[in-house]
């Protein structure tokens, strides 16, 4: 793995190989304490991602077509790195967030169908095609009652198909954007990402989904995501800036055309709470 040193970073800054942008989200959804929530579905800048696509058909997400938190244009053959990510809010704290590269999603999976639903993978995953470190994130896009369970069959990071997740509980928090498996103190509540079969470290494709028992009434989308970094709002009176060169010793890589957005673990409702910050990338 390439190590990016202080001189490379300083040179990139000197020569202008940097990108800086502000962002601001203001969720309208009433989120719950301790329940993971997909901030990509919230209004603001960047514009919301509503997981629109043909049911069950993998739909890629890209900065060039879908937006997301801007990080600058494509830089290949150079490598783009996340230099600084800052987040602050006068209303929402504490709030843990993950900066994700959303690779794409399987839209509108119907919880009322209890037969195995086979998904379509005619469109390749646009980034991280080997699946290493790619996670599944099931997002509510039409509210459910909750209390049921489901599992997923997928192809793992080694290209082995018919891998199966453990059983996952469906929570009762039904607002759109909720990670449905973030069900709190309930058996098989696993979040924000779905647990994988023993030994697996990533997902290339999702192949099918099974809602167990009598199913439910809602819809979910399963997003394929890669975690870029973590951050936090610890207090409403303090910004949280993470300089990945100074604080973490390593700058996360951002792929060309990555669709970046945020996943959050709120401490209550985020409805109406402005969350803002800035991002700085550089490329070497």
């Amino acid at each position, binding site marked *: 793995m390439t190590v990016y040193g202080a001189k490379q*970073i300083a040179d990139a*800054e000197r020569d202008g190989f940097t990108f800086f942008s502000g962002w601001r989200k203001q969720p309208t959804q009433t989120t719950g304490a301790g329940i993971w929530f997909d901030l990509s579905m919230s209004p603001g*800048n960047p514009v919301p991602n509503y997981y629109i696509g043909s049911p069950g058909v993998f739909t890629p997400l890209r900065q060039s077509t879908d937006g997301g938190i801007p990080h600058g244009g494509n830089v290949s053959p150079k490598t783009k790195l996340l230099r600084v990510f*800052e987040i*602050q809010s006068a209303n929402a704290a504490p709030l843990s967030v993950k900066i994700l590269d959303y690779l794409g999603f399987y839209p509108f999976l119907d919880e009322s169908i209890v037969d195995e639903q086979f998904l379509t993978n005619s469109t390749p995953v646009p980034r991280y095609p080997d699946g290493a470190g790619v996670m599944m994130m099931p997002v509510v896009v039409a509210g459910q009652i909750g209390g049921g369970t489901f599992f997923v069959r997928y192809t793992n990071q080694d290209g082995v198909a018919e891998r199966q997740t453990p059983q996952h509980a469906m929570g009762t928090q039904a607002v759109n954007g909720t990670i449905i498996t973030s069900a709190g103190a309930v058996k098989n509540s696993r979040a924000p990402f779905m647990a994988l079969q023993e030994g697996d470290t990533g997902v290339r494709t999702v192949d099918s989904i099974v809602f167990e028992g009598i199913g439910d009434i809602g819809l979910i989308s399963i997003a394929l995501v890669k975690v870029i970094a973590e951050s936090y709002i610890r207090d409403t009176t303090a910004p949280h800036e993470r300089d990945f060169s*100074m604080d973490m010793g390593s700058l996360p890589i951002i792929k060309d055309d990555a669709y970046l957005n945020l996943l959050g673990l709120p401490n209550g409702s985020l409805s109406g709470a402005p969350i803002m910050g800035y991002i700085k990338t550089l490329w070497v």
Partner: protein
Amino acid sequence: MSINSKDDLDAALAAGQTWVESSSKNLHSVTAQAAGIWYDLSKGAGMLSWDALIGSGTNLTFQPVSDSTTTTATTAATSGSISGTTFTDTTHGTGRFTIGQKLTGTGVTANTFITALGTGTGRNNGGTYTVNNSQTVTSQTITGTATANFIKHGGNVTPAVKQLLNASVVSAAATSAPTFFQLVDIIGFIPVDTVTLTTAQTILGSQTYPRYANGKGVKAYITPVVVMGAGTPTLQLNYTNPSSVAGRLTPPFPSLPIANATAPVGQIVYSGTGAGKYGPGMPLAAGDNGILSIQSIQQSATMTSGAYAIVLYKEIGLPVPLTTIAVPGERDFFNQLPSMPVIPDGACLSWLQLAGAIHPVNTPYNFTLKTVWKN
């Protein structure tokens, strides 16, 4: 020579080779800042007064900016008058009149400044402007002079290298937070009066930057200098990058920047919420590390009225966040990578702000910055 160690820093400070500048900026006096929108605070009142330079000059012509730059605008011969506090540009001569310009001419009271636009848009015949001194002047040639009025940082120090040591901001006003501020060095601008045209408008004259001449790290934002009309066109720059590759375009993916309707003076016109909103800089083409020169700007539709400036700038260091009313936000630039950004001679420092809430009109923010250099 630059500061290369803690010992260098201590020695420079002990020798008094340092400058502390306190300034304040009030937000716009007529328009509250909207949440999620970027603003150029040089166009706010305060201590530094309203910048008169950006937006002056000649339509579509690059105007370099240093801390000693002045520009002028004049009425046609004997076509200016002042009645009470209203200056009338009966027949326009040259340049653009802007808020903050100092007016001179036979019979004009000393230290007369334009304080507000009336019907004047800078260069229209019959345009009126409010001035600070009540007086009567008839049928004179009146000249407006805009002087660079940016944040002071300690004067020229070459051959020493001036560097930014720290910066802070605080406000005790209601609803003044959350927000954050980015320090920039403004190196030039291109005034655009022809806001109803939808063809590509060619930028005139040569473009030699007074600083960062290679264009590396130079970016552009667009801000009204006269409140814009109802149009919401897309905006696209055609520019040359620092590798001298011409024909680079603001990328249309996922959307070209889209101007806000009736954007006030100082707003970064394509920032905000929704598709086509960016900020603070105009997006650059893939991989580009700056702007060496701008060849043209094109709107997809008319802006109906108003005037704007394409401002060329370079970011200085990382932003200063402000989360809480009456609690200062501070950035120590010593413990950064790279440490202590360079402030070149002639730099025109200003703050850009991303409003995190609806900040009321005239909200005051107080800034301090400290520079240091080693002789």
